């Protein structure tokens, strides 16, 4: 469980003394800041997180934090919308919502709202793509009330019909509004281009899928996944660890271990190809641009060099895309480029910006050019140094809150990564060379096989999109409910 402390400190000392010659401004005009000497950064007290397995299989991560009279809990449950049936997209999300709003065997949802708000506490639940979450935050003085509700919600939700209906109203309203904002159209449709419209990693709700979801589906979905041996619970705050573990064991003692069969995770198949796609949206004066292809996973040994590449390409205020598209050319307010790696399925490599319609194609070309350059030649010494130093010098911020430390450990455990994975990232980032960056860029990025999407008014673009390749129009009209 323990994260090595020594390396971290050495790294920081080293970097504080990083020599001046790599600074671009160490010219005769050198700014004064280059002459500053930094003291060694104070030791980071990395707290030990205590790991406890309860008799019913629930795994606890505890860390004390006595600064403030607060207690926070955060659970991860092995489930996800990837496990919901295609014809019932939205089921996982609605289950996650109504677990909390729909009440339990002993309290209605409205009673829970009332009890929690009287003590300024919160209990929330939700199910995302590949995990379920439940959280609780409370003042120490009210721990017992909140913990009782938290456990009740996890163990005994009844999914009251009226709250199922309320959640469905919310979903239908969201569908009706899903084309209001150009950025939500862009991300949603771009994800479908990459993973395929039916893929669990990109599909979305429709009136028809919401209509098919019934209370019984929620009950079954909950029953399939919500068992103590399928739950991890992180707790941090103002308590004594042993006492807290006992309290939790007591709160969840009626929850019995059960056999959980997790279905297979969906496969992602991808064929690299260049495509050009356009969505007409008449009420906007910018082109919302996104392009890219499939990305990777964090357990790829190339991941560390890709972290460095990301910083150089588009992941910061000092990246090439920011400098060239924003600062030098003034083409966009926000511009980004990122090779995304996920824990247990391939992420997406994406590059994009929003620019006035009249510079859309120019901006697309400029961004493609930046991507090409990553695969053509080595980054400079300065770029490499900046990317590595900024990563390593800001490493201390990974430990400035207990909650962040606990959540990270739980996430690693959940996805089967080593507990010291962050330390591994750091150690490996330190070793990345210019050659590594070029090698991984060439291996993982294909500038000639990016899928390009522009949302806006193509008639106002500086050039027709067809100069980039055969154009496919995407229809975003919202299908009505099935008859």
């Amino acid at each position, binding site marked *: 469980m323990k994260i090595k402390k020594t390396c971290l400190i050495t790294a920081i000392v080293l970097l504080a003394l990083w020599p001046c010659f790599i600074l671009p401004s160490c010219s005769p005009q050198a700014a004064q800041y280059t002459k500053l000497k930094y003291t060694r950064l104070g030791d980071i007290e990395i707290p030990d997180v205590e790991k406890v397995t309860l008799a019913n299989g629930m795994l606890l991560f505890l860390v004390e934090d006595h*600064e*403030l009279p607060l207690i926070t809990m955060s659970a991860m449950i092995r489930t996800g919308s990837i496990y919901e049936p295609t014809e019932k997209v939205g089921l996982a999300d609605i289950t996650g919502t109504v677990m909390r709003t729909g009440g339990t065997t002993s309290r209605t949802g409205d009673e829970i*709202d009332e009890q929690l708000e009287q003590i300024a506490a919160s209990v929330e639940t939700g199910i995302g793509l590949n995990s379920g979450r439940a959280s609780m935050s409370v003042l120490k003085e009210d721990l017992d009330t909140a913990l009782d509700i938290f456990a009740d919600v996890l163990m005994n939700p009844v999914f009251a019909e009226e709250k199922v209906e309320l959640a469905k109203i919310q979903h239908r*309203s969201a569908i009706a509004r899903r084309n209001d904002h150009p950025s939500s159209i862009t991300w949603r449709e771009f994800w479908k281009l990459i993973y395929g419209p039916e893929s669990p990693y990109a599909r979305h709700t429709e009136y028809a899928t919401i209509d098919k979801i019934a209370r019984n589906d929620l009950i079954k979905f909950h029953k399939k996944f919500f068992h103590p041996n399928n739950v991890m619970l992180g707790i941090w705050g103002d308590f004594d660890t042993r006492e807290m573990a006992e309290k939790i064991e007591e709160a969840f003692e009626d929850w019995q271990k059960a056999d959980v069969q997790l279905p297979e995770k969906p496969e992602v198949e991808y064929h690299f190809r260049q495509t050009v796609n356009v969505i007409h949206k008449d009420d906007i*004066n910018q082109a919302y641009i996104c392009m890219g292809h499939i990305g990777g996973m964090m357990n790829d040994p190339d991941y560390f060099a890709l972290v460095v590449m990301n910083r150089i390409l588009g992941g910061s205020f000092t990246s090439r895309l920011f400098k060239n598209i*924003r600062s030098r050319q003034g083409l966009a307010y926000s511009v980004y480029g990122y090779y995304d790696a996920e824990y247990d399925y391939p992420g997406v490599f994406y590059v994009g910006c929003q620019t006035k319609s009249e510079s859309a194609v120019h901006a697309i070309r400029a961004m493609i050019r930046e991507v090409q350059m990553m695969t053509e030649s080595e980054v400079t010494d300065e770029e490499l140094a900046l990317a590595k130093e*900024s990563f390593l010098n800001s490493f201390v911020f990974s430990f400035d809150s207990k909650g962040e430390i606990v959540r990270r450990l739980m996430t690693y455990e959940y996805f089967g990564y080593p507990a010291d994975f962050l330390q591994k990232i750091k150690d490996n980032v330190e070793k990345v060379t210019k050659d590594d960056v070029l090698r991984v860029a060439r291996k993982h990025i294909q500038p000639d096989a990016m899928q390009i999407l522009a949302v806006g008014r193509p008639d106002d673009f500086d050039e027709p999109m067809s100069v980039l390749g055969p154009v496919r129009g995407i229809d975003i009209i919202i299908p009505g409910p099935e008859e």
Partner: protein
Amino acid sequence: MMWKMREARVLIIGLMSLFSVVGVLATRCATAQDLAEFEKRMTKFTLDNGLNFLVLKRHEAPVVSFHIYADVGSVDEVKGITGLAHLFEHMAFKGTRTVGTKKYKAEAKAMAKMDQLFEVIKEEKRKGGQADKEKLQQLQEHFEKAQQEAQKYIVHDEYEEVYTRAGSTGFNAYTSEDATQYIVSLPSNKVELWMLLESDRFANPVLREFYKERDVVTEERRLGENSPHRRLYEEFQAIAFKAHPYSEPVIGHMSDIRTLTRPEAEAFFKKYYAPSNLTVAIVGDVEPQKIRGLAEKYFSHIKSGPKPERVETVEPPQLGERRVIIEDPSQPRLLIGYHRPSVTHPDHAIFEAIAEIIGVGRTSRLYKSLVKDKRIAVSTYTYRGREKYPTLFIISAVPAKGHTSQECEDVIYAEIERLKTELVLPEELDKAKKRTRASLIRQLASNRGLASQLTFYEAVTGNWRNLFNQLDMIEHVTAEDIQRIVKEYFTRKNRTVGLIETVLTENES
């Protein structure tokens, strides 16, 4: 139960005082005593030039958050230069006479040339249809050439690079109606770097790449134009105020942004960035004595200047409800605003309590009636108004599919009328008070959040202690106070309503 290793306690020495502060806060108790505890870790000092520093020790981790609150925002602009406070904020990242340049003197010359050409171009463009197109093109070419000349001397994004390299996080700035705020967090051994860079930034800023950055801001403005919510808000704001500059969008009007000049931005800086108009908070793993020494070393040479005048314009009382309906392809939305006094008004705490009771959480009156019971909205939001000048208390709602803004409006007004005829319940008031306390405690857990709150209370209310005193104030709010305020301010005559009415364009219908 299986136990694994148990080890070193996190260092909490030095934090004990804070712990006891909030320990007391959590119970119902006077806050004066808690404040006294907090005060032990706070240091406040003012340099001779008027620059205010608030330093709070918090030794949780070897990191520090810095917050500079410049008491200037879009409210200080006039017609013709709207967006200037925000544009200046962007320009403050472009460096100084030593940062961001290879050869300042030559660069300054090239920039002056650009400014001059831009004025001539502007003059010619003002002629509209009569403008000499050929001349304009020629001027434009000269301008581009001057720009290229200036570019030769630039070290691009050096300022960002220095902070990034030092391990910064949350390096950013933001502009609002009232203020422009510059923030960054650094490992605690980089305090001097911050001192050096920020003192240089506010003593010798060089507004290089001005005309390019203005293009970036026009793109930022377009992002707003492409968001239905912001389209509505801009129209709403414009009719809610007819005299006071809160009517203007922070980002500025497109035609103003496009014609702003560098000399205008420099003059704005000189007027509004005197040390007396800045408040600094530094929160984290620091020693106040050392901070003071460094502050003297780096900031004391900045020339003092007068505190700029406050906005004199007072919004006159409304004579009747104001209403704007925007025709938009997006789904309906609703904004209702009531004029209310500024954040420093003694009744502010009552507005806070009203906002809590009607608008915060699943048990708030509006969420219960609009979302849970009647199911005519998917969400509702209440903004209490925390501005320096008289402002708006805003209620918004997003109607559910198949329901209208009108239905939501009716329910909101009915809830407001109920507040005028029936006193709020004691448990509603208790809930609001407890939540305010809890929310203060939660804010104390973050260097960044604390730095932001301390500068706000110091700069706007005149005393950082009001961060705690607000609890006392809300503690004294009574059900009768609430009724009085709702009767006085939440009237039809005093309100402004903004709506989106869905009108489909041809290819979307």
